[in-house]
């Protein structure tokens, strides 16, 4: 069960610090937890883990493909490896290894891709993954999760360690807007309805969750009642919830810090068209490359804002079907 914060303040702790702490807690209980990194320990905030558990922490150097293969091998002998790189490299450089050595081989590998989308900021286009989830999404049986805030990091990392299989986690490294109250817990594969509403559902993820909540607030002024869902599991998508929202609100807006081609908007569309086709508007990156800039600059540049969500809602509402609805 989770509780939503009603303020939009930055979490006091950095995402990465919570991640490191969560893994250290796990490592204290379970000898099989192993951390891997590809020369980005300074970025991932995993230094405390590396200091505390030098025998279970492996910096493979700048060799992401090797890292995933090693992680797969470790899991062959019962280890539970958590491997990190920036989201761009954790996916694009390892796609074949994740597919064959990890997923197809049915091993137990956890991957963290940090700096999703615009949160890569000054690292620019080469380092700004708007495609990481898309690259991974067609790999069978993999679980794809975007972590919303430190409270979720804390809870999900623990779950993921317990569930056998390949998990890819996408997460901003630094501070995120707090969405959940401390102690909240989450169910992988189930979206979180953060706000009830009846005119439209905003299905958001990552940094766009708080933007969606802001958008919903501002829509109230226009007497539009927006439901807000944090769809932190992109795969498997919560088919049931998507259908329910489609049926009940008859219009959907998706919001993601990712390319709308192949991303969350895509996953939601796949779910919508099965039994409950309703109009969907997508807020996200429109098939463009990344670039350098502050996160704020980039959010504006790519339209990843509450204002953009409000616009999308206003575009989608007139397209709602008014007549007989047969599903």
């Amino acid at each position, binding site marked *: 069960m989770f509780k939503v914060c009603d303020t939009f303040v930055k979490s006091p702790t950095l995402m990465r610090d919570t991640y490191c702490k969560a893994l250290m807690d796990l490592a204290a209980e379970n000898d099989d937890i192993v951390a891997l990194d590809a020369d980005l320990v300074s970025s991932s905030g995993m230094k405390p883990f590396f200091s505390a558990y030098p025998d279970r922490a492996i910096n493979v150097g700048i*060799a992401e*493909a090797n890292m995933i293969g090693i992680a797969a091998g470790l899991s062959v002998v019962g280890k539970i490896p958590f491997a990190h790189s920036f989201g761009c490299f954790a996916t694009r450089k390892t796609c074949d290894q994740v597919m064959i050595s990890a997923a197809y081989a049915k091993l137990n590998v956890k991957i963290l891709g940090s700096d999703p989308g615009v949160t890569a900021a000054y690292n620019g286009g080469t380092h700004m993954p708007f495609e990481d989830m898309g690259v991974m999404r067609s790999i069978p049986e993999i679980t794809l999760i975007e972590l919303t805030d430190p409270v979720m990091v804390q809870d999900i990392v623990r779950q993921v360690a317990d569930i056998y299989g390949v998990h890819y986690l996408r997460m901003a490294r630094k501070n995120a807007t707090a969405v959940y109250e401390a102690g909240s817990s989450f169910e992988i594969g189930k979206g979180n309805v953060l706000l009830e509403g009846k005119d439209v559902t905003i299905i958001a993820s990552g940094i766009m969750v708080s933007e969606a909540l802001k958008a919903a607030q501002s829509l109230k002024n226009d007497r539009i009642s927006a439901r807000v869902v944090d769809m932190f599991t992109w795969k498997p998508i919560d088919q049931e919830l998507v259908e329910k929202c489609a049926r009940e609100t008859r219009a959907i807006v998706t919001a993601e810090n990712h390319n709308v081609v192949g991303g969350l908007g895509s996953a939601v569309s796949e779910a919508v068209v099965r039994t409950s086709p309703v109009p969907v508007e997508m807020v996200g990156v429109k098939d463009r490359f990344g670039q350098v800039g502050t996160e704020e600059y980039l959010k504006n540049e790519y339209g990843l804002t509450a204002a953009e969500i409000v616009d999308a809602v206003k575009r989608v509402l007139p397209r709602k079907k008014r007549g007989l609805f047969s599903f």
Partner: protein
Amino acid sequence: MENRKSAKELRVIAEGIRLVTLQELEGFGSGHIGGSMSIVETLAVLYGGELRCDPGNPKWEERDRLVLSKGHAGPALYATLSLRGFFPKEMLSELNQGGGHLPSHCDRNKTPGVDMTTGSLGQGISAAIGIALGNRMNKSDSITYLIIGDGECNEGQVWEGAMFAAAHKLSNLIAFVDWNKQQLDGFTKDILDVGDLADKFRAFGWFVQKVDGHDVGAILDAVAAAKEHEGAPSMIVLDTIKGYGTFAAGVEGNHHMSFTKDQMDEAVKKTAEKLEEARAAAAAEEAARRAAAAAEEAVKKAAEPPEEQPPEKQEEPAEKAEEDEAPAEEGEDNV
């Protein structure tokens, strides 16, 4: 060392593996004959005794592991595993059959005794490293074996792994590169010249040995030396011929081949003959060894008073004899 099979005994095992692999491929009518034939002797040495395993318990935690990174050589490994008793010989007919247990490339989830899923070249080394590293963390003395192709060494992941394994002094990793001088499209020197692989792995910090990859004795010695060596991973460069022992040997286009019935009959016949020769040689050796041992025993008994150690020592040869017989029997079953 005393537990080790003799070269002559391993020769029997090798010819048995070659024969059964050919029969397996014959059943399907085509396949990766080139890369299967070139690793037969290495598999004979490993599954002839060097690689610790238990056919009755393929998932035994204490076992050594083999990552056959050149996963397309699966047919040779399948033949070996069935000869060693991991699964019944009949299963070999499932090669490449939809829904069967023996896919064209090795799959740890499908075949008893296959330790890692491979087929995308370059990936095996990393998996083997992970296994070796995990075993080191687990304080297990298990050894991880790895077989890669020479063409496979084109893949950068091989060198990522090479650099890592050396930096981490993974001496529980013993790798072989099947230097058969051919890749899929032709001779490596024409496609992408890999140059001197021994030199390269040495420059990457490995303990490197180069041996005749069809000489079971040489391979056995190299594995023994590799096991002794501390502080670095081992690379045994196998000087081999792709398709060795068959019509495919060293010819162009021998990577994946269809063959005529005549070609295959001839190869099977030749290999069966070699197996018989090998058996005769091994039997002669064994007879000589027993005679010598009996003589020695007699001399000892006459000369020495009873000690505490002998009973145990005596058990060893007995065990060995048992082990020796097993593969021969299996070989017979399968000829």
